[in-house]
């Protein structure tokens, strides 16, 4: 996480070797991104999904889009149909193989991009603000799919502006001016409100309310991020002295 222009996307592009470090090294499973012979292997291990759904879809129909990566990996055409069906199931776009890509909604396009990366069976998937151009409905679906991926054992590196989305992760890295400012467990990080405010993040309103109440000297935990938990915390306080 971090403000626009803090270097998040640049970092992400180093992870799959699109960019190569000026100094220092990036290793993917022991493979240095600087060495050209590792180029193919690294891109196969790490899938990338970008912010703008329109500027990463290459072909005109859904099935061809997924096949694009497979064709590059020289997968025989007999296996392709099976894989396409499988990954479309994963992103809930079943039965849309023949749909033209320009007829999809933003959320569907983004799910297609995830599917076409998944088809290549990457070990890790890097998503660069995949939800920032979507409406709330589309956003929720994409996040749900990313969560499912993680459950199924794929590592996920998600770049986002939304605190809500990053709370689902195990580790958060906060960047500013091309440097890492802070990293650690998201709940720890986002409950230190002063730090977050000084870094210009929007704190969730739940934390904001609890923080305001705590300022008046009441004993509440700031780690309640979901609305329900926050409400419980306040109810506990209210019913304390009845």
């Amino acid at each position, binding site marked *: 996480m971090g403000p626009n222009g803090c270097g998040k996307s640049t970092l992400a592009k180093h992870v799959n070797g699109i960019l190569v470090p000026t100094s220092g090294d990036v290793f993917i499973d022991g493979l240095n991104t600087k060495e050209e012979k590792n180029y193919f292997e690294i891109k196969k291990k790490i899938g990338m999904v970008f912010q703008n759904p329109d500027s990463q879809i290459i072909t005109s129909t859904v099935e061809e889009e997924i096949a694009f990566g497979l064709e590059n990996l020289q997968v025989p055409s007999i296996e392709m149909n099976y894989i396409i069906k499988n990954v479309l199931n994963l992103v809930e776009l079943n039965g849309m193989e023949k749909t033209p890509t320009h007829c999809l909604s933003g959320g569907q396009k983004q799910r297609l991009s995830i599917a076409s990366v998944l088809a290549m069976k990457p070990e890790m998937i890097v998503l660069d603000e995949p939800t920032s151009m979507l409406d709330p409905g589309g956003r929720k679906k994409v996040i749900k799919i990313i969560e499912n991926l993680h459950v199924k054992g794929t590592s996920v590196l998600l770049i986002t502006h939304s605190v809500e989305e990053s709370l689902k992760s195990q580790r958060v890295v906060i960047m500013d001016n091309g440097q890492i400012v802070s990293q650690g467990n998201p709940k720890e990080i986002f409950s230190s409100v002063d730090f977050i405010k000084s870094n210009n993040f929007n704190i969730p309103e739940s934390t904001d309310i609890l923080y305001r109440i705590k300022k008046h000297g*009441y004993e509440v935990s700031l780690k309640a991020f979901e609305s329900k938990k926050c409400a419980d915390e306040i109810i506990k306080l209210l019913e304390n002295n009845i």
Partner: protein
Amino acid sequence: MIRVEDLCYNYNAKSKSSISALKNINFTLKNSTIMGIIGKTGSGKSTLAQLLCGLLSPTHGKIFLNEKEIIKDFKNTKEICFNVTMAFQYPENQLFEKTVYDEIAFGPRNKGISESKIKDIVFEVIKFTNISENMLKCSPIFLSGGEKRKCAIASVMALKSKVLILDEPTAGLDCKSKSQLMNSIFEYHRKEKNILIIISHNMEETARICDKVLVLDEGIQLMFDSPVKVFKNYQKLEKLNLDVPQTSQIMRYINNEYPINTDIMFPKEAEEEILKILNSKGVER
């Protein structure tokens, strides 16, 4: 004042494959109100915006701006545009002039305003949008994303129209630039007292600055009311997969167990309300 009467719009109206984008929209906006339009993608928000600026003409129904009917009672589209302007989504993609100054001056120049007055206007709008004066000579192409957006919004503000429509003005920006841009838009509105229409997916933003909220679903007007009343209908909104400001959600949860005012939408009000109850109960600190 804007009055929309029974507005319908169909794409490809004449052919058999006509698609209905808007059905029977009715609302009235008084001068100097801010209206938010919310709805899923494809619910007709952008179509409505384009109808209001006269880029599309309604299949059925009428739009009045100060009792003049849009399209019919105006000389041409240009004439309408000087009264109703809009900034499209991602307006930074549409910048084209050589310098930021020319970009902002493009609208007023088309309006036929004298150069000295244009200068005043440009300097006025860059103050609202926090664009520094030495940036005016730069080419808009080489600005950063956030600055381009500011420049694009400034260039529609410079038209000083009676109605300004912004289609997702803060989409894709980080939190800091988002709140900065929203504040400058609000400041501009306070000064100009124009009608401001904001299409947004950000419900907290909508709740904070809008006087009226229009909810669209598949071209149908679902609600048109004050934000408090609209967000009270949270079940309807959740059905549409739209968010509700988190504070009002929290207040509802509390209300399930403990009676509390559920009309509250902002953390600051929530703080006051909760403190009031805590104090009256004498809860220990």
